[in-house]
């Protein structure tokens, strides 16, 4: 489904290389975790997959469903089924969750040849998804992320994921800032959303999330490259030993 080949990237307009040859292959039905210390480039990688214009790919390629997506705009990537749960979801005062989701759902549905939904139908559909992340229906009528707590913002990201049904989801530090109850709710939601036809890549600093969502593959990223790949037990090893032993390797 996703094949990242020797990906090098810089911050647009600057000379500093952040990704220095990332290789990553993700197949349908899998859950991957990318772990690494702060500043290793793991969040940048997820933004680049989603098409953030602030970065420039200088070498390598990202192949999704057999085609390079480097020339695609972020919205085209969303239409193709790529989703990014943001580390810092953006507040959009004046636009309700309902409005944003309906706009998103219908544009994505249209480009994937699915039926668009009318407002009433859509509201019913949303209600079924709200349960996944234990959110109150009144939340649909609030402005996107405005005056939301940190935990609510993260839950909202997963709610959006549930509604939009992406094929490939990057979850960027979705666990950061969550208390134990919120973490349980969010990870429960992700486990229910994920199925045989989609793939999830979790980007996280801590092993904690992986107690709730068990990954098939764990990668360690340090200084812009993936230095080690293993099974779920690798996460435990990292928990125990930290990142130092890999940095010095």
């Amino acid at each position, binding site marked *: 489904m996703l094949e990242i080949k020797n990906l090098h990237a810089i911050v647009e307009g600057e000379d500093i290389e952040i990704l220095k040859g990332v290789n990553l292959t993700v197949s349908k039905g899998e859950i991957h975790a990318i772990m690494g210390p702060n500043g290793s480039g793991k969040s940048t990688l997820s933004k680049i997959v*989603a098409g953030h214009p602030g970065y420039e790919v200088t070498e390598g390629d990202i192949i999704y469903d057999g085609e390079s997506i480097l020339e695609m705009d972020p*919205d085209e990537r969303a239409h193709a089924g790529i989703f990014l749960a943001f580390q810092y*979801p953006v507040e959009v005062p004046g636009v309700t969750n309902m409005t944003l989701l309906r706009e*998103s759902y219908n544009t994505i549905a249209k480009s994937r040849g699915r039926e668009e939904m009318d407002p009433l139908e859509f509201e019913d559909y949303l209600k079924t998804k709200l349960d996944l992340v234990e959110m109150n229906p009144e939340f649909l009528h609030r402005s996107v992320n405005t005056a939301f707590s940190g935990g609510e913002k993260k839950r909202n990201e997963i709610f959006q994921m549930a509604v939009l049904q992406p094929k490939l989801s990057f979850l960027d530090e979705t666990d950061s800032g969550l208390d134990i109850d919120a973490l349980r709710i969010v990870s429960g939601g992700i486990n229910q959303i994920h199925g045989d036809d989609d793939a999830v890549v979790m980007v996280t600093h801590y092993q904690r999330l992986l107690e709730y969502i068990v990954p098939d593959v764990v990668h360690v990223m340090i200084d812009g490259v993936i230095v080690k790949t293993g099974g779920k037990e690798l996460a435990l090893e990292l928990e125990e030993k930290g990142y130092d032993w890999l940095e010095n390797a």
Partner: protein
Amino acid sequence: MHFKELEFTSQPPIDWVAPYAAKAAHSLETLSFPTKKDEDWRFTPLKTLTKHSFQSVNGEAKSVTEEHVQKYRLPESRESTLVLVNGAIREDLSSFSLDSSAITVKKLQEMTPSELEEAGFQSLVPVENDYFSVLHTATLTSGYYLHVHKGAKVEAPIHVLNIQTGGPTPYVSSFRLLIHVEQEAEATLIEEHVSLDDSVYLTIPVMETFVQKKGRLNHLRIQRENKSCFHISRPITSLEGTAEYHSYTIALGAHLFRNEPQIIQTGEEVDFTLDGLILIDGDQISDTHSVMDHRFSHGNSHQLHKVVVHGNAHSVFNGKIFVRQDAQIIDSFQENRNLLLSRDGIVYTKPQLEIFADDVQCSHGATIGDLDPDEVFYLQSRGMTEQKAKEVLTYAFALETIENIEVESVHTFLVDEVKAYTSRNVASRF
């Protein structure tokens, strides 16, 4: 007649205002026309104004009929609409039938000099030293006195609609609103300025408003005139102790819009708002010089002034907050946020706090910026095109100032105006 640099042909003044107008005309002989050397006009060029030769009008422009007015009527103000054309009262187009024990409306021209004086006419507006206030009085032809009686809660918003229409000759039109909200009375005023064509005119509306103890006035000011006109307004409000005044100005039109709202606290425990939303593009100039003057203790004031600039448009904000020496326990908030969508737009902003008391909380801030690329990216990653994302964010920026407007029909047309502005402008740059 020349009023310094401003070329102007005047009509003989109408009886009621003649003594005031004569005095004003006399003052104009010695007052200097504002230039960039005046601190208050440093960033606001008046050369587009002085290139025209203006004629005063006091006709009623009979060509304006119900057909023209229809689309501006608000269902909430079916029984409380006052229509002026070029600043002259048009009773035939007005419809006012609210209970006269709650509110009375008089034409200024039907009041005696002593009644005018008693109502505070000319007591707030500068009569000698401010060029455009004086020019307003020199060219004044008519106006309304709105009097909300003690304890009355006037539910229906009072819609004062000033329609402009002209011919090939530039003209000056001025009108006055004199407003009294008595003790414990409440009312909502919608003051709206529109034009039917692209004629060039200078309009100088002045308001003198008095809110008495425990009185409350909500004031919506909507300026959506053509982009050839000049609009220089001075709404001045005096608040007695425990009075409330909440003002929202939304301005989209005019080639030059200069607004000088002023709120004066004349007793303890007042609460007031002075919010604004300015949307400009092309070669529009918009300038807000506001004064919030805390002269007594216990006052809350709130000012959120938002501006969106596109094209070669040019915005100026100067927000003065005074807290006088004896005015303790004042909580004052001021924020000026500017969204600059084009490379050639210009924004000047200057918060100006002059605080002489010590037990005071005053916060102020000013920002100028483009749309945040992370916000654009967020919406794009949810499937919106870049343009749609930028429209939504510009719309959201503007919406904050209008979402509290409770008069539904006004809220609806303002949302449409904001949408039209964003879809017109967002596409053309990015």
